[in-house]
């Protein structure tokens, strides 16, 4: 059983993860079409600015954005999402296993760095949990499913931290760590965890007022 969890199950999870994402990517392009119209580009000539004016205009451009209305949440969520994806990819232990299995790996961060970043992810998750529990507006739309999704996202980091520091029984913690990682990979394409990736499709490819790029597609 343990050999299956540490071997084939991880491969199955990767296959489901990749195929699930491909399926949703194809569905996205099937559900959207090229826009037939576009706003004409604004013709605003930028004037030369002094450094002071430049800083002022940059700060002014934050007005009405989440950086201005919810600065703490914006920083926490940005950090959380970047490290949630980055830490497992550039973790030395993961890359050694990848190298052993497939003969290829990413470059790795120092273990002391990933250890701290893991704590950062856990702290951010605790912050999100606190928002869900204590903020009326978040509680108003929170269901048990939201807590489950948060648990799925943070469990690999918690168990990974325990395993690295060899807290509790190492083999048991490591098995739970692998299982939680497998659950996370499998659920990403089929649950709201998918927003981590579909955020890029929606904000860059769909043309709306709030697009980050000049989105050329419409629903």
């Amino acid at each position: 059983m343990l050999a299956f969890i540490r071997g084939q199950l991880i491969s199955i999870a990767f296959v489901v993860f990749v195929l699930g994402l491909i399926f949703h990517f194809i569905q996205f392009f099937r559900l959207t079409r090229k826009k037939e119209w576009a706003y004409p580009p604004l013709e605003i000539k930028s004037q030369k600015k002094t450094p002071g004016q430049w800083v002022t205009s940059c700060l002014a451009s934050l007005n009405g954005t989440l950086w201005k209305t919810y600065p703490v949440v914006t920083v926490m969520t940005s950090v959380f999402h970047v490290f949630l994806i980055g830490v497992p990819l550039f973790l030395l232990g993961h890359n050694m296993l990848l190298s052993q299995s497939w003969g290829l790996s990413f470059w790795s961060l120092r273990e002391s760095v990933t250890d701290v970043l893991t704590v950062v992810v856990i702290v951010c998750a605790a912050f999100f949990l606190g928002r869900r529990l204590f903020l009326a507006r978040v509680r108003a739309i929170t269901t048990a499913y939201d807590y489950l999704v948060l648990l799925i996202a943070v469990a690999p980091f918690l168990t990974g931290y325990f395993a690295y520091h060899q807290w509790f029984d190492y083999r048991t913690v490591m098995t739970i760590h692998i299982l939680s990682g497998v659950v996370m990979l499998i659920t990403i394409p089929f649950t709201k965890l998918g927003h981590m990736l579909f955020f890029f499709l929606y904000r860059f490819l769909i043309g709306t007022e709030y697009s980050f790029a000049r989105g050329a597609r419409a629903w």
Partner: protein
Amino acid sequence: MSHQELKPVDTKQIQGMLSRKKGKMKRFLSYCAHCSLCAESCFLYMEHHKDPQYMPSYKAINSLGKLYRKNGKVDRKLLTEMKGIVWRNCVLCGRCYCPIGIHIPSMIAFARSILRSQDVYPQLDEVSSESWL
């Protein structure tokens, strides 16, 4: 009893409408992270002392979300409750902002279409009696 309350709900028609836009709308609903970051982009939320009922996500989840969750099998009482959410609590100004890129106004507009198909919509005398404006 008004005409709106008498007509039975046509579940098949609602299901047909839900199914036509299922691909887009179910994606919107399932990728909503329930983060509430859309709240302050709604002027009605701000004007009503930050009452969560006026949050764009709350309105979408409790109207269209409920319709999908119940697969269109809803009674007139629930549709009437939704009427308040999608007409009184939202003016469809289109200013709501979702960090993930979910287009909330299209969800509210779609919920309105479904309700309208069942003859559930605000009526002039109702507007004055309930002080909707």
